[in-house]
């Protein structure tokens, strides 16, 4: 395999006293999807802006396909596409008008710009709305238009900053499908997200960043493996939680987390694990009837919580007007 197509080494960026990035390293192999996960203010947008030549780092280097993002910004711009944190569409133009405009600004001939616009509208299901003003599009359609605007020149690397924030589940699914389709074309995608399931579904590799640094890197499975499996037990009688807890504590060597509402317990397992048969037998001996006993891989949420000491953002309500609000922070 050749060199990674996106490389960042020791990126630093300060805004006054705020140290947005403090030595961020990244490497994304060509043709893969890299998910950058991080809590609010972790530095995701700042990193994407630097990689997309919109900001210069205070220290460190970044290269796209071997071209330095500062010294060879023009070469880089011809290789990348960027969909910022807020959909950047001209609301007063139609969907088709937007694509034609950006096609022309990409120096396609009028004919090519028109043809490419129709091709993309067709392929990503926006043909029906092509002649309506983008200002009247739903949040999901606007996002899709924003996304395909980046595709006019078939970028080799696509940066997507929180591509589905504020969308309802169906629109999210549509964006995910679009991203998957791009990857089959060979496009490399770097996407930031606060949704762990999004990273889990789309990303080949995940980089967790916090306070401007990468604090963990790996495939979703590798990250989950770092904190081990969990044992979940559901009791038939919630009143017996106390007894069950001491049995499980003895077996697993860790303190179980009880959930009185559902009458269940969950306990992290040391590596090497535990035999389910032993669990059932020991519970039986203590006179506790279990409705369900199971081993479970941790979710990325748990990994995230463990790594950053904070839970991931709650999903914003789908109808939240994130999409239409004029952005204080663009990208």
């Amino acid at each position, binding site marked *: 395999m050749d060199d990674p197509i996106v490389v960042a080494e020791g990126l630093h960026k300060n805004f006054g006293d705020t140290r947005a990035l403090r030595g961020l390293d990244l490497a994304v192999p060509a043709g893969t999807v890299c998910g950058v996960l991080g809590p609010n203010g972790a530095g995701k947008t700042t990193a994407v802006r630097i990689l997309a030549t919109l*900001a210069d780092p205070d220290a460190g280097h970044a290269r796209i396909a071997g071209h330095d993002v500062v010294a060879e910004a023009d070469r880089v711009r011809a290789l990348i596409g*960027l969909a910022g944190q807020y959909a*950047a569409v001209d609301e007063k133009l*139609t969907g088709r008008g937007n694509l034609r405009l*950006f096609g022309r*600004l990409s*120096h396609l001939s009028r004919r090519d710009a028109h043809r*490419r616009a129709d091709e993309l509208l067709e392929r990503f299901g926006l043909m029906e709305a092509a002649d309506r003003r983008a200002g009247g599009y739903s949040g999901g359609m606007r996002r899709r238009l924003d996304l395909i605007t980046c595709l006019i020149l078939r970028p080799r690397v696509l940066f997507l900053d929180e591509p589905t924030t504020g969308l309802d589940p169906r629109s999210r699914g549509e964006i995910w499908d679009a991203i998957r389709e791009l990857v089959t074309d060979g496009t490399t995608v770097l996407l930031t997200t606060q949704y762990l399931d999004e990273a889990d579904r789309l990303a080949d590799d995940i980089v967790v960043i916090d306070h401007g640094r990468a604090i963990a890197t790996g495939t979703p499975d590798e990250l989950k493996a770092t904190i081990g499996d969990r044992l979940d037990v559901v009791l038939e009688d919630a009143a017996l939680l106390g007894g069950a807890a001491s049995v499980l504590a003895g077996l697993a060597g860790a303190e179980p987390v009880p959930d009185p509402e559902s009458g269940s317990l969950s306990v992290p397992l040391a590596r090497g694990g535990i035999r389910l048969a032993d669990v059932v037998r020991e519970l039986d001996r203590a006179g506790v009837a279990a409705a369900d006993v199971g081993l479970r891989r941790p979710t990325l949420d748990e990994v995230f919580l463990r790594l950053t000491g904070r839970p991931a953002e709650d999903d914003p309500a789908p109808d939240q007007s994130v999409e239409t609000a*004029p952005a204080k922070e*663009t990208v």
Partner: protein
Amino acid sequence: MAVLAPRPPTTWTGRLRWTLVDGLTLVGRELSRLRQEPGELIVSLVFPAIMVLLFGYVFGSAIQIPGGGDYREYLMPGLFAMVSFTSAMSVTMKVATDASRGVMDRFRSMPMARSAVPFGQTGADVLGGLLGLVIMVVTGLVVGWQPHRGLWPTVQAFALLVLFRYAMSWAGCYLGLVVKNEQTADQLLPLSLPVTMLSNAFVPTGGMPAWLRTVTEWNPVSALTASSRELFGNPGVPAGHTSWPLEHPVATVLLWSAALLVVFVPLSVRTYQRKGR
């Protein structure tokens, strides 16, 4: 279909060509936007006509022109000047909207000519302004205004109005790049109105207190109005000694335009290109 990004030009002629082509594309964008919003188009065309009628007949019934003459003859140069001045704010609005909606960042992340965006926005404004100017001229002719000094001075008068408007649109462009925010731009919008009122555009300055007169005489809107009155041969050309700008209105307008361009073209281009907020 293979779509390849053309290589960015490396020679300065190539760059100039990209700047022109991109600038024209952005001018075309304004036209397409108007097509999408026929309502806006109609309003922007009807508005100048309404102003002519409103000012002409409301103020016209009350205001006496020193030295005599028809108020609507007196008014038209003032209206032309006012529109040239206030148009800057619409550029501010467009630029700020692009900046706050992320469209500006999209431009920046594309292999475009770097100065195309400010040149395109200001160029589009002037072209759009010509249309409004034609409507005003026609309405003016209908209500009895006309140029009296022949073709050449008339051409000069319009050239000055367009030049000043272009220079102002650069100031507006810079303002938009600095505020970067639609709402702020929207709040700034009404501020341009008092500036046009503090001039000789609508009322003779003779009756004003001395300090206010000084302010109005140095206002570029007054010089622009005075130059139009002089070149069109409309009433209201100041008689006797006033201040330097009103005695040499044409030179004053040229100086103001040059100064605005010298200051705001480089500032806007630099601000647009500046990275790393």
